[in-house]
């Protein structure tokens, strides 16, 4: 136990001594987190949630204007806010200028006794404006149809059209934060955790007599390899987890919503750093490779898994799920990010714990593999 504590203490000292590396690990989260927050911290609220849509109205025809006003008066957001935010314009020319400058989404105008619409591009808000035009057209067409076939039914039909009961009931599957863009922050923290691969490689290389003088000193010491390995890895994991936690705390301070389950969030980070470190330990223990080659493999794993998890292309996780779902089940970055997601979205912890157990299994396999390839080494000359 004394050897374990001694080794644990000195591994921490070695890691802390490398201040630049530690600082950059924290800076990685702080710099990119700030950037993400500034770039798309409120995109979901701004672009995906429905707010009043800006439009201009240039309707000369009196009856069209009257019917248009009636329809608009009957449509609202949540029963309070109006669906349309009408911008006052002097005429068509001014309205077209506003449309070109993207200050409004559409122009309602009258032509041949009908309500018409001009939009700049195709999109959901433009489609909602289109549905207002369709609603106007709907009343006119139904009234025309009924006037031929059953004129006495027109009043009842019109009442049904305008005040029909809504029987399409919304079912909510989760009360969690549905902001899709928060997954970028989940992936950022996941990548930061997995960057512990570098620390794991450094630890493994530092334990090999042919690659470092500390490794040579360790090899001739009386301490058991297992004690040295476990205490060293534990120290590495803890320091890496502290760096990631500091980054996470910063993100929470600036306003990123990571939920309110601090204990579980900490546990995910700890498991993530454990997997990263153990993976690094395994790579670092492979004997025939140079330090440079080990770093390449480490970088490839960190960047590659972050890409497949969706850090660079948001929907990548779903593409992988469709093409080869098994990758999402073993990709450490995807598992860490999915643990944050499931913690936020679901009421139960089954999926989150399932992910953490997979991370632990990967970690154990890596340590086992690392010890296996690194054991019983004899050096003819160092």
């Amino acid at each position, binding site marked *: 136990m004394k050897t374990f504590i001694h080794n644990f203490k000195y591994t921490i000292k070695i890691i802390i001594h490398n201040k630049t590396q530690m600082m950059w690990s924290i800076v990685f989260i702080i710099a990119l987190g700030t950037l993400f927050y500034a770039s798309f911290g409120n995109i979901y609220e701004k672009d995906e949630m429905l707010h009043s849509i800006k439009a201009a109205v240039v309707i000369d025809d009196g009856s069209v204007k009257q019917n248009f006003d009636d329809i608009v008066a009957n449509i609202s957001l949540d029963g309070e806010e109006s669906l349309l935010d009408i911008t006052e314009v002097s005429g068509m020319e001014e309205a077209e200028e506003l449309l070109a400058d993207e200050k409004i989404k559409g122009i309602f105008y009258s032509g041949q006794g009908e309500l018409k619409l001009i939009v700049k591009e195709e999109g959901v808000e433009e489609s909602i404006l289109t549905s207002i035009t369709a609603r106007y057209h*709907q009343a006119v067409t139904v009234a025309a149809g009924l006037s031929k076939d059953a004129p006495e039914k027109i009043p009842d039909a019109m009442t049904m059209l305008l005040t029909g009961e809504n029987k399409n009931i919304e079912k909510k599957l989760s009360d969690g934060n549905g902001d899709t863009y928060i997954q970028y922050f989940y992936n950022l923290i996941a990548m930061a955790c997995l960057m512990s691969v570098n620390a794991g490689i450094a630890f493994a290389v530092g334990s090999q007599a042919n690659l470092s003088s500390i490794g040579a000193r360790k090899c001739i010491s009386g301490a058991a390899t297992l004690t040295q390995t476990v205490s060293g890895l534990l120290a590495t994991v803890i320091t890496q987890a502290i760096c990631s936690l500091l980054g996470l705390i910063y993100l929470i301070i600036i306003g990123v919503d990571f939920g309110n389950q601090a204990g579980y969030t900490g546990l995910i980070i700890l498991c993530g750093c454990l997997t990263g470190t153990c993976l690094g330990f395994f790579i670092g223990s492979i004997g025939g490779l140079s330090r440079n080659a080990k770093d390449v493999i480490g970088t490839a794993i960190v960047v590659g898994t972050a890409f497949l998890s969706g850090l660079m292309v948001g929907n990548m996780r779903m593409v992988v*799920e469709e093409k080869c779902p098994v990758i999402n089940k073993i990709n450490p970055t995807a598992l860490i990010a999915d643990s944050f997601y499931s913690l936020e979205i679901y009421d139960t912890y089954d999926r989150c714990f399932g992910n953490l157990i997979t991370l632990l299994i990967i970690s154990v396999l890596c340590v086992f593999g690392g010890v296996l390839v690194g054991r019983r080494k004899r050096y003819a000359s160092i």
Partner: protein
Amino acid sequence: MQVFNTFFKIVKKQLPVTMIYVGIFLVLCVMMGSSQRDGAGSYTASSCTLVIVDHDKSEASGKLIDYLSGIHDVKYEEYTDEQIQDYLYYHKIDYVLYIEKDYGTTGELTNVKRPGTSVGIYVDNQIAMYEANMRALLTAGYSMEDAYALTLKALDSDGLVELSVGSAEKPTIYYYFSYVPYVIIMIMFFIITPVIVAFNKKDVNDRLNVSPITLRSKNMQIFLGAVIISIFVWILFIAMACLMGYSDFKDMLYKVALNSLGFTITGTAMATIVGNFGVSGDTKNIIANIAGLALCFLGGVFVPVSMFSKGMLAVAKFMPTYWYINTNDKIFEGGSMDDIAAGLGIELLFALAFFMVAAVVSKRMRTARSS
């Protein structure tokens, strides 16, 4: 040309590792480009991805499905609640509609959507209009067939809406070229930075200082070496693009080639700055990731700048990646050489500025080392 030769000796020594990096990022770039071809998660125009689960299987439910499938991309698979939640979150689907049993008589429906979003409310609106129309006509004595025919006519907005600007679909190769900046930055950091660091090692530097080679000559030879390497990498990327889909961009080949060459030189200049600071190992990896991801997120490589606020857009304009993407968009929108010249010029100005900063850093570090 001693320094120039040594530059390539170092590159040659690191060639296996370098080629692994180039290979990895080349694969990444191809995957990034290809992933966008599936278009998963993005809805275009007024068409959304709907999942419809029909528990009624009546004539009425069939008509509702016909109506919605005429507008949207409809899937009929039955998913678990967990899958639906995941698919909605990741935008693989936009709306799930359950047509309840006895819908034909009760009109009862249940939906799951991203709460409060424009897409959800848009589909809600469409279903409500269809329902109101059908109910009004059926109550008025119309048959199901006649009511449906008149409803389709009533809800058709053809000829009522004008589009002032058309939007063209972009080929897969567009996305490949959109993601090139990230890969170029990363590759340049991994290839150029270690070579510059090697030149700045105390022993090598001291040896160079006592030689008759001037600092200016040394920097110029390193600069030349770096540019040759960047051209080699650039040719690899263009060759890969040609393999992926030459026919998609043969008319604009020289424009995309110029644009990517401009950015490759900019990426090389950035890597030169970091190299002159003597950064290597783990720290270099982290800095490469920060620089690569930050520049690409800010410049609109990963998330379109159209989503940015005005303030962020102003900041984005100070990023070389913004000008690369801006120029790339113009090229694929059919822009002429005049349209893209400004963007290209700004990219090269960034490169020039970065090389000048690298020269200043090199001089400062040299002074610091000698003192």
